[in-house]
């Protein structure tokens, strides 16, 4: 049986690392406040422990990489030509909303919405919430298919 892996890789640049740091600081006001919460919550809120580690090491200048590995062949089967083109488009162009993406691709909104949802459900893109809009963004610099 052929084992297929799809890998989405992203290495954060300086600005993206700053944004990540600011997101954590906005949520907890300061690293000290987060440290206090971790100290109180201990193992009951493991996400806080991870966030504390991330921000402490980002502040020390660490690099940050993300990788999503899917073993599901379903992820591969959803990558039709139009969806791959959609992913390529949002990787290379600024898109303000799903409607904006549909306009720029000159495609029907409903079809683009459905494609975005399928790609999102399979972890191939992310949707960033800005006000009432949902902005489709690519979560990777590289998409690798391995056998």
């Amino acid at each position: 049986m052929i084992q297929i892996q799809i890998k989405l890789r992203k290495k954060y640049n300086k600005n993206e690392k700053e944004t990540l740091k600011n997101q954590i600081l906005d949520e907890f006001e300061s690293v000290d406040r987060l440290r206090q919460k971790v100290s109180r919550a201990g193992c009951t809120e493991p996400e806080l422990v991870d966030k504390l580690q991330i921000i402490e090491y980002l502040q020390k200048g660490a690099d940050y990489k993300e990788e999503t590995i899917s073993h599901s062949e379903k992820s591969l089967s959803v990558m039709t030509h139009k969806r791959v083109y959609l992913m390529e488009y949002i990787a290379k162009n600024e898109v303000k909303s799903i409607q904006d993406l549909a306009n720029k691709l000159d495609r029907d909104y409903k079809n683009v919405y459905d494609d975005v949802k399928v790609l999102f459900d399979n972890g191939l893109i992310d949707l960033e919430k800005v006000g009432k809009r949902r902005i489709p963004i690519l979560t990777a610099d590289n998409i690798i298919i391995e056998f």
Partner: protein
Amino acid sequence: MIIEKKIYRLRDNQRVKSLEIKKDKQMVYYSYNYQILNGSEWKTSVRWDNYQSQPHVDSFDDNGNLLDTSSTRDKSLKEVLELIDIFGKNILNMDIKKL
């Protein structure tokens, strides 16, 4: 120094989310979270981490409430993936600290 976050989607409703921090190629922090999709939210069922250099394993109920925490030996991501591959959701019925 490098922070590496990895998500292994094993099945549609199961994944392992890992965070590894390495300094001069030495692991200084890790957490490996076996998560199950509950509605539209990923909930951690079992978690191994070495916070404050104390390797331990935690288990949680369906609502994310801590059920148990035990000291264990250090785990690698490879070991965790193998355990999940072998036991799947049944890992919750095992004596996790001894695995």
